[in-house]
């Protein structure tokens, strides 16, 4: 199969693809956002553990959030691992926040200027509920610094909805059955969240937007770099579909494929909906479920194994008129049955795979399905889903099978999904709404002074697109510009450019491609700075030096130094 062209605008326009980003990037501060714990490299080492549960509570507007209720149904035990060096009682939620880290605030203000945002005069810290346990309080402290900004991406203006300053969540260690374990060292590291408007029209544009934001972050010099210090959430919808958020994509190059397959998944779900409706399936078609424990022990012992151990139960859900629907393909290796299975895994916590079987599965236990159909007075046009496990989990699972099918009748459920290594996504949780936000009562609003705004303005470098235009104008290629920025070598370049007589593209080559090559070859490149370059190439005679010769001279100088 030919690799799809992720920039085929007419194709994605025909789907009505809309895509926006939420880029999370850690700020390079010494301390965390609300306490004086240091920011250290991640480490698996821990000294103690605590156990917590999360209960849904009310938002300011008096509603329970749907995600909140879902998480509560999962009855998860959340275990936090604590390292004495990197967490204190604040991160454990055994103490209120101490104060807002002003260095983090200042850095975020500079980035607000760089993103051309309407800046907020008085910051209000909000509590954003997260019942997955990723934050021990059950909420993230977060605040908006600015709204309605813009970036230039491939010559297009892309709106920036907002920039938030917030605390990082924990790192998940494992999630099995009813126990989820987190490492807390990352918790509360200051982070900016840059939210774009949903203005990417193709998967390639979404990646380009992420690339622009990445370069702005590098240009600021105020952020942490490296894997695990940045994550992208990608929002995808198509015409007739819903907003689906793909959470925590670590690398920009993963974005196009994920967006593409999400768009196709939504298209396929709309087809499923139409097929269901065309064959007259209505919400009442999913109302029957029955105990099939004995039949499952007889016909599906190998499949369910210890999920059918003593005390456990198996139940079948009858999906009337739905034969063939569960095998409808939704993406590479994915069908509607995968979506149902995801829900059972995440919400009912039955996570030994396969965690269900259905009558659309050609290798499924036919005798079990036949018996379920016979008992339920169902026929071959009706699909059967069977789940097995502890009674409480099975009750939840049965409900989730029905819920997911009801959603299939509506089209595309609003949910957050996580990227799998295969390039597709799986269900993570229902998409939360604004109801999960309410004011933090531990710290008063923070009034920003005129002086703070001015300092941020003064410190903000020129706009990325202006800087890029200048680089391109001096003869650099776009690829060179991108790499100068994302390797942070643009600082050396800017310092050296007026002191060397080299052609700009040669200087860029030395700092980016050649430098990387030397480092790979084991040459110590730490001494490669503007002074060295000026000493080597400051002479007028260097104006005509060839790239190859400049490279040779530089390599020799570095080897001599070492």
């Amino acid at each position, binding site marked *: 199969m030919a690799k799809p062209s992720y920039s085929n605008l007419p194709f994605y326009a025909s789907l009505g693809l809309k895509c926006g980003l939420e880029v999370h990037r850690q700020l390079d501060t010494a301390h965390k956002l609300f306490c004086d714990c240091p920011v250290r490299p991640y480490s698996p080492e821990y000294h103690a553990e605590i156990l917590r549960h999360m209960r849904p509570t*009310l938002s300011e507007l008096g509603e329970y959030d749907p995600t909140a209720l879902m998480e509560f149904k999962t009855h998860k035990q959340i275990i936090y691992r604590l390292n004495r060096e990197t967490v204190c009682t604040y991160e454990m939620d*055994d103490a209120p926040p101490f104060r807002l880290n002003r260095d983090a605030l200042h850095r975020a203000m500079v980035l607000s200027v760089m993103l051309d945002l309407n800046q907020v005069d008085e910051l209000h810290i*909000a509590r954003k509920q997260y019942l997955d346990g990723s934050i021990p309080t*059950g909420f993230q402290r977060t605040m908006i610094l600015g709204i309605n900004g813009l970036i230039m991406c491939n010559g297009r203006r892309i709106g920036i909805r907002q920039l938030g300053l917030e605390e990082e969540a924990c790192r998940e260690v494992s999630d099995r059955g009813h126990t989820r374990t987190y490492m807390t060292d990352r918790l509360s590291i200051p982070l900016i969240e840059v939210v774009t408007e949903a203005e990417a029209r193709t998967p390639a544009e979404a990646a380009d937007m992420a690339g622009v934001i990445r370069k702005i972050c590098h240009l600021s010099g105020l952020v942490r770099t490296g894997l695990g210090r940045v994550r992208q959430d990608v929002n995808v919808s198509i015409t007739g579909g819903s907003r689906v958020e793909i959470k925590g994509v670590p690398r920009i190059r993963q974005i196009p494929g994920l967006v593409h397959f999400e768009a196709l998944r939504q298209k396929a779900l709309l087809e499923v909906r139409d097929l269901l409706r065309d064959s007259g399936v209505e919400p009442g078609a999913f109302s029957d479920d029955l105990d099939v424990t004995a039949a499952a022990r007889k016909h599906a012992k190998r499949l369910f194994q210890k999920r059918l151990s003593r005390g456990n139960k198996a139940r079948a859900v009858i999906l009337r008129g739905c034969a063939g629907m569960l095998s409808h393909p939704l993406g590479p290796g994915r069908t509607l049955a995968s979506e149902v299975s995801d829900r059972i895994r995440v919400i009912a916590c039955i996570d030994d795979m396969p965690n269900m079987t259905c009558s659309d599965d050609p290798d499924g236990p036919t005798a079990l399905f036949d018996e379920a159909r016979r008992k339920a007075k169902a026929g071959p046009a009706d699909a059967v889903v069977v789940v097995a496990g502890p009674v409480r989990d099975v009750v939840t699972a049965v409900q989730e099978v029905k819920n997911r099918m009801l959603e299939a009748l509506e089209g595309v459920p609003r949910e957050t999904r996580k990227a799998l290594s295969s390039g597709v996504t799986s269900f993570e949780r229902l998409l939360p709404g604004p109801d999960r936000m309410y004011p933090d009562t531990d710290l008063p*609003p923070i009034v920003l002074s005129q002086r703070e705004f001015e300092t941020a303005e003064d410190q903000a470098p020129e706009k990325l697109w202006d800087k890029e235009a200048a680089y391109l104008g001096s003869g650099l290629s776009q690829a060179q510009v991108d790499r100068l920025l994302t390797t942070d070598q643009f600082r050396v370049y800017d310092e050296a450019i007026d002191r060397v007589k080299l052609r700009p593209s040669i200087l860029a080559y030395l700092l980016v491609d050649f430098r990387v090559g030397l480092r790979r070859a084991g040459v110590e490149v730490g001494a490669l700075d503007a002074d060295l370059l000026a000493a080597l190439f400051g002479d007028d005679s260097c104006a005509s030096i060839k790239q190859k010769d400049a490279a040779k001279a530089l390599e020799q100088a570095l080897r001599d130094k070492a």
Partner: protein
Amino acid sequence: MTQGDKFKGYRGPGLETLKRFNVGVWEDVCVRSAKGEFRGIILPRSETADDRHIVLKLDTGYNVGVAAASCIEITSKGRREANYHIQENEFPTDPAKPDVVLFGTGGTIASRLDYRTGAVIPAFSPGELYGSVPELADICNLTTKKLYGVFSENMGPNEWIGLAKAVAGAIESGVDGIVIGHGTDTMHHTAAILSFMIQEPAVPVVMVGSQRSSDRPSSDAALNLIHATSAACISDIAEVMVCMFGPTSDKYGLLHRGTRVRKMHSSSRSTFRTIGDIPLALISEAEIRPLRTDYLKRRPDRKVKLDAVYDDRVSIVYYYPGMKPDVVDALVDNGYRGIVIAGTGLGHVNKPLYPALKRAVAKGVHVFMTVQTLWGYVQMYVYDTGRDLMDLGVIPAANMTPEVALMKLGWTLAHSDDRDEVGRMMLTPVAHEITEREPPDGYLILQGGLPEVERFLKSYQM
């Protein structure tokens, strides 16, 4: 809607700006300011915040403040009032379940948010509690009575007496258990005085609160309330107790005796400890496991000895090196009748205080010695200082904590002013405020960093 409601909380330049553009709270507006355009709903302003900003709730749910002075234009698109309420459902009753009364004094067990102050305010009716902690209906039939609505630092003698009388009334009316919601800061003061005012209750009297606010998903509030209600219903320990988290983890609660419990950390969930002894029982959703046997048992007789009196002319003198005698003199001259000293070590103060103490005793003031180490007994025979102090008339108060001794002295002085009688009452335990012995595991503060403790912590969720 009154003018006040329309501009709720706004004053000064903020109020003027709203009036100038003829907009008020809950209006969906577009604000054009020097910093750009902001769309959102105008929220009421907290009274503790400044008067120079207007708060908007954006569509995303975030709140932002716009400087009033920078507003160029505000246009309204209509009103959208938020109707914040705790889900209220009728609390189910089941004749087979025990009846529990929950008295409220102002702690936040369940809560909602107050826009005006941005503060968390308690939710309390059975319906509201059922809406936020539905598990309670599996435990009991609940009625609630709000006695006070104060932060716990504002609880005082009048509230203690009122609370004690209400509890006694409820016991006599035949309930199966009593829960008292209370702020945690002074919970151990109230628990101590109730132990003296409500003696030999026929049913459990359980105080409960929360350390981490109940609006947060990880709050200890719901679990504490579930534990306390279970203890009130099921437990056969008919004493005044405090029921709060054992460890900081969501694992189990502890039932502490009202006279031996103390808040030991300003914010941790595991803040309450039994001092100088072990707790009464361990309580989880699965069981109540008594840790000792010397408690008063639940009785069917609906009786209680109510003795709700208090003389508030008592104080604690927390001794420090270099303290001057005028501290003691000032209390005596101001008419105080009882002084509890929190002394150093085994119960000591410096020599310059002696004349002041002698004068106090001579003026009929009752002076008792406790230890600021909290753990351990006053032992004034060991050193000359102690013997000298006893000669001056200072009475050692055994292993009462300073706060408990203060509560007891206030209660005692409301019965008698006779030196011998006051001494006798103070030193005759009513509810284990003095214990005969301190068991070897009555004092345990694990020291972090030690290899054996680290091993323990790693194997046990703390």
